[in-house]
């Protein structure tokens, strides 16, 4: 009886957590290269719109995903231009990007409210979906969810077992070391912004092509900000990000179910759950981290690279 209630909830948690996972990994990618990007919310929603429009126009949702990644990366490129080329303040630039991105998406998306686009639908993975309990929770989803299973591993492998990952780490920890080694830390940070932005875009694409197949104004509802917090909560490591993303997915799914069940609790309080949980998560990390999570942060995070002369 318990499992009958739990399984649909956990399945919904995975679904709900997937866009957050993509966005968190994307922001983590950027931050580990040393750039603080507070524009995730704007990039995510721009990605969602781009995915929707392209999928609607071409009938191919995969092209939509590609477009989402590129659109989010393009928006991120503005952040890169301001911070990496013009040495602007990274915090304020990211905020500006969110204001711009949200405005842009809501403006361009208004004519498409309520329309439907071809998207991703759930299918069973052969054999794996027949496994008891886990099979139903993890292996009866759409293609993007399956992609998200691979992402954290690919992320870890890229950062710890490739030369580029090593170079990006140096750019995020101590750019002078990268320069002295003959690398270009600014170029590496560009890679961090564009690569991370692409991932964030995919997270947005999930919202408009898989989680729903519609466009709604403001459909990210703060998920981008939750991703920023989750990067801190995950101590900048991909494994913990998975845990955090599914936790939030679970809470959001739970909140929806509770609302639908006609409970006495006012809907406003239910809607507060994810945001309150974010603060709780940061509290938890701070208490656990003992000396603040700042000790695990990339040492040069948020600090622009000053010119030599």
């Amino acid at each position: 009886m318990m499992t009958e209630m739990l399984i649909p909830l956990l399945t919904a948690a995975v679904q709900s957590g997937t866009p957050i996972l993509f966005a968190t990994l994307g922001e983590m990618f950027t931050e580990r290269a040393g750039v603080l990007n507070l524009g995730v919310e704007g990039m995510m929603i721009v990605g969602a719109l781009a995915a929707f429009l392209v999928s609607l126009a071409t009938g191919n949702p995969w092209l939509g995903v590609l477009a989402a990644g590129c659109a989010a990366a393009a928006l991120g490129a503005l952040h890169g231009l301001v911070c990496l080329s013009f040495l602007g303040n990274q915090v304020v630039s990211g905020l500006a990007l969110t204001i711009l991105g949200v405005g842009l998406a809501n403006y361009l998306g208004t004519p498409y409210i309520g329309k439907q686009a071809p998207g991703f639908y759930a299918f069973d993975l052969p054999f794996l979906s027949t496994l008891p309990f886990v099979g139903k929770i993890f292996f009866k989803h759409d293609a993007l969810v399956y992609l998200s299973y691979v992402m954290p591993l690919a992320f870890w492998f890229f950062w710890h077992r490739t030369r580029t990952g090593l170079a990006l780490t140096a750019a995020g920890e101590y750019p002078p070391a990268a320069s002295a080694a003959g690398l270009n830390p600014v170029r590496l940070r560009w890679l961090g912004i564009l690569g991370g932005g692409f991932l964030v875009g995919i997270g947005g694409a999930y919202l408009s092509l898989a989680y729903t197949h519609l466009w709604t104004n403001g459909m990210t509802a703060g998920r981008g900000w939750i991703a920023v917090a989750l990067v801190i909560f995950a101590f900048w490591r991909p494994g913990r990000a998975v845990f955090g993303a599914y936790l939030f997915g679970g809470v959001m799914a739970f909140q929806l179910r509770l609302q639908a069940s006609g409970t006495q609790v006012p809907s406003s309080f239910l809607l507060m759950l994810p945001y309150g949980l974010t603060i709780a998560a940061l509290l938890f990390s701070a208490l656990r981290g003992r000396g603040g999570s700042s000790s695990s942060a990339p040492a040069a995070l948020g600090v622009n690279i000053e010119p030599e002369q």
Partner: protein
Amino acid sequence: MFGLTVITRQEPPKWGSCLIFPAALALSLGVSCLLLAAQGKPALGGLIILFQGAFGASYAVVDTLLKTVPIFLCSLGVAVAFRMQVWNIGAEGQFALGAVGSTWAALTFPGLPAWLLLPLMFTSSAVLGGLWAMIPAWLKLKLSINEIVTTLMLNYIGILILDYLVYGPWKDPSSYGFPMTKEFPAAAIIPTFADSRLHWGMVLCVVCALLLWVFLTRTRLGYELKASGESLRAARYARMPHGFLVLLVMGLCGALAGWAGLMEASAVVGRLQPSLIVGYGYTAIVVAWLAQLNPGKIALASFFLAALRVGVENLQLELGVPAAFGGIIEGLILLSVLAGQFFNHYRFKRSAS
């Protein structure tokens, strides 16, 4: 990058930073025109409607001035917080809580005369807004929790609290399902000047600006605030009361944003409703960065961005342009200003090939 090298300037440029904002404005409006055209709307015509909406008639200017008040108050607080490198993104939520606080006073004590009720409302909105801001401040001080995320989360929560109250316990039974509280009693409305719609809140703005200016330039705490914001290490070395200053600054910011909420609820609308929340807290970030800590510049920038909002409303009316259009312009302005400020300290040179 791109064959250019960055060189540090030995002294600031002669033609000064006054060119940056006009250039940024021009760039943003230019891109906005393109976006209008992309949606099949008249580009230049749109600009004219924008301008007319803000300045075209006397009632338009009044609209702009009315919007300047909440933006100004929020920006004043945010600018002071930013000066101390405390990134308060939560003015929106503090605004909401301030509106809630004033509504509580107005609805709980409807019988009080204005000279008692209004000060009570000011107090309650400042307290609520200030407390809402001090929570993330305290978390930052005690646990080093990033205030950007906490203030932002509290925005969402604060607005939801307002929603709950308006749809729930404070709902006006005669409103036929529209989300709003009962009308404020007459004693709770901030009076206007003579026949116009302009209200005494504008005087408050001037008073706040003056007080803040005196505080920052003439007092010891104001000096400590300036120095602490410059270099955290020097502040610790010089034994600045850093923790106290952070709390003070955030409390001030929350109170000012709270008063902005009070203004809108009391003077402009006359009741509490969710449509009060239009993003003044986020616009304040743009203003604060444009104007740094100069109250005169803050006033000017607030007026400009208020004009932008009113103009966009007109665009909405005349051309059916979504309200989100304003966000595009604001975001672009801030990005271009950030990029433009580069030239205060650096310049480009062709790389040796």
